[in-house]
């Protein structure tokens, strides 16, 4: 096969990098985002195609087989995953990316004949460390989100001490490797680093509860970028370095947004063990809530002129987003202004609730961010809270001893009437009782406890046929 010069290949990489950047930039609007993604994919295609003409590549049978197998698996996953399962999907993809980077770094060590310089051997160790932590950590996150293992934090004694010791051990062995990368033991050292990093990834994610998975996935996303960039240093490959930097930046920004939305530091998410089972039984006085029937709710909605819907993950669990959108269409037909208020942590990953509602055909102009809509609640007739809890808990504003304290919330309590559709009075992930349920303006409409059945929304309290009649 003909081969291209190093310069020609690197020029192709430059085009790829430009296309990646333009693609990400086009993500800034839903109008251009789909095209942007396509440009980014074209950039990837160019990078792969150019690399196939690299003169070092002398045999193609492994490559072709691997490309076919990987594409088939990727295609299958992308076509079959449900929108509710998107966090698991992204976690798994992060894992594969990080794993690939670590393996490439290891293979490069075997292949290269030159003595690795200080920077190459250092980044090689870092690539394996970050890549394998991403790989195994992502699969633990995947298992927790997929329900393959319990999502509650798994904690044991000296957990953090063990993690720190393993990390130091890895860095120590790494230092030995960097000191004499051509010694007889060098490959063995890398294998040991590979193994300990894999264990670290597992140990690092198991103590983190299901509610914190959005931040963890964003962080692992950043890791997968860093791993790619480190591998780029090992290979002196610019396209890997720039792409890794872009992805790393994206992951860090998203982690930061998720942490801010929960008013937690990254440190607290990673080591705070929030989500342990809390004993709610002995919380003192029984407060009264006012129960309403679905018919009451319908009558109330009929008289409203503006409604803001606050969806939470409970909505997605019940797969009720489609029927909810049917409801909004009926309300709009009656001339009632309907919008959705989306809290940054609604759903199981950044932006997840928007995807779920888009799938149910809700037009994106109706999907409002918290800052955009929070001042409008006071002029709204009904705040319609469905399957959400912590994100509307007023305790976040003033109750200093609450885990929620300081978290930005939606001002649902400022609406003229608050309607809460819930399965039970159970507290949200934070384990904090929600006083909004006891507000005199609040209408509680309880539904049935079973979820994920076809008619769950009807069961949850709003009989659609009532409107259609």
């Amino acid at each position, binding site marked *: 096969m003909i081969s291209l010069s190093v310069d020609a290949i690197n020029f192709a990489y430059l085009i*790829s990098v430009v296309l990646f950047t333009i*693609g990400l*930039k086009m*993500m*800034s609007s*839903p109008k251009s*985002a789909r095209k942007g*993604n396509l440009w980014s994919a074209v950039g*990837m295609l160019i*990078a*792969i195609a150019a*690399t196939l003409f*690299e003169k*070092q*590549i002398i045999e193609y049978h492994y490559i072709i087989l*691997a490309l076919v*197998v*990987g594409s088939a698996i990727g*295609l299958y*996953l992308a076509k079959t995953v449900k929108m509710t399962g*998107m966090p698991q999907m*992204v976690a798994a*993809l992060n894992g*594969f*990316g990080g*794993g*690939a*980077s670590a*393996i*490439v770094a290891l*293979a*490069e060590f*075997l*292949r290269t004949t030159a003595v690795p310089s200080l920077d190459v051997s250092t980044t090689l160790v870092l690539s394996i460390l970050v890549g394998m932590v991403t790989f195994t950590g992502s699969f633990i996150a995947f298992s927790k989100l997929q329900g393959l293992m319990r999502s509650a934090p798994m904690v044991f004694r000296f957990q953090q001490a063990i993690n720190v010791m393993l990390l130091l051990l890895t860095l120590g062995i790494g230092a030995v490797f960097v000191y004499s990368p051509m010694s007889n033991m060098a490959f063995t050292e890398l294998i040991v680093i590979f193994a300990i990093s894999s264990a670290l990834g597992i140990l690092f994610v198991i103590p983190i509860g299901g509610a914190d998975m959005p931040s963890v996935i964003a962080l692992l996303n950043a890791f997968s970028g860093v791993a*790619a960039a480190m591998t780029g240093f090992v*290979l*002196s490959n*610019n*396209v*890997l370095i*720039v*792409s*890794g930097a*872009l*992805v*790393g*930046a994206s*992951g*860090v*920004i998203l982690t930061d*947004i998720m942490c801010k939305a929960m008013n937690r530091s990254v440190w607290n998410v990673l080591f705070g063990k929030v989500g342990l089972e809390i004993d709610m039984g002995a919380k003192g006085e029984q407060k009264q809530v006012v129960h309403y029937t679905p018919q009451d709710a319908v009558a109330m909605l009929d008289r409203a002129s503006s409604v803001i819907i606050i969806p939470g993950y409970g909505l997605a669990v019940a797969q009720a987003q489609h029927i909810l959108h049917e409801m909004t269409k009926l309300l709009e037909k009656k001339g009632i202004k309907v919008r959705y208020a*989306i809290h940054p942590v609604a759903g199981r*990953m*950044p*932006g997840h609730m928007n*995807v779920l509602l888009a*799938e149910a*055909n809700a*037009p994106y102009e109706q999907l409002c*961010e918290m800052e955009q809509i929070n001042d409008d609640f006071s002029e709204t007739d009904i705040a319609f809270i469905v399957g959400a809890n912590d994100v509307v808990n007023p305790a976040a504003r003033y109750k200093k001893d609450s885990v929620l304290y300081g978290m930005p919330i939606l001002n649902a309590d400022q609406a003229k009437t608050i309607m809460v559709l819930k399965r039970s009075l159970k507290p949200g992930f934070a384990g904090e009782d929600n006083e909004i349920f006891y507000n005199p303006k609040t209408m509680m409409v309880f539904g049935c406890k079973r979820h994920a059945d076809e008619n769950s929304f009807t069961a949850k309290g709003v009989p659609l046929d009532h409107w259609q009649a």
Partner: protein
Amino acid sequence: MIGEFLVLLYIFVLGIFVGIEVIGRVPPLLHTPLMSGSNAISGITIVGSLISAGAGYSTLSSVLGFIAIVFAMINVVGGYMVTDRMLEMFKRKEDKK
């Protein structure tokens, strides 16, 4: 002439700044597709795995390269396809119907 590593480091640092600038403008509405899409970009590591798998140095390095290509390709194809699937759903009112 500055060392090669330093040049690479410059590229890395500037890349991070570009990333922060570009990604900071993506609205929360699109954060999930942004994650899956940027995820696909991190599959760029496939470029390295192609050389490992095809250089014919040793069976072990070819096998490692093979595994790395499979992983990276799942990342690339899965990431771009699923992002496209999501973005297709984001429509305005008049586009719906």
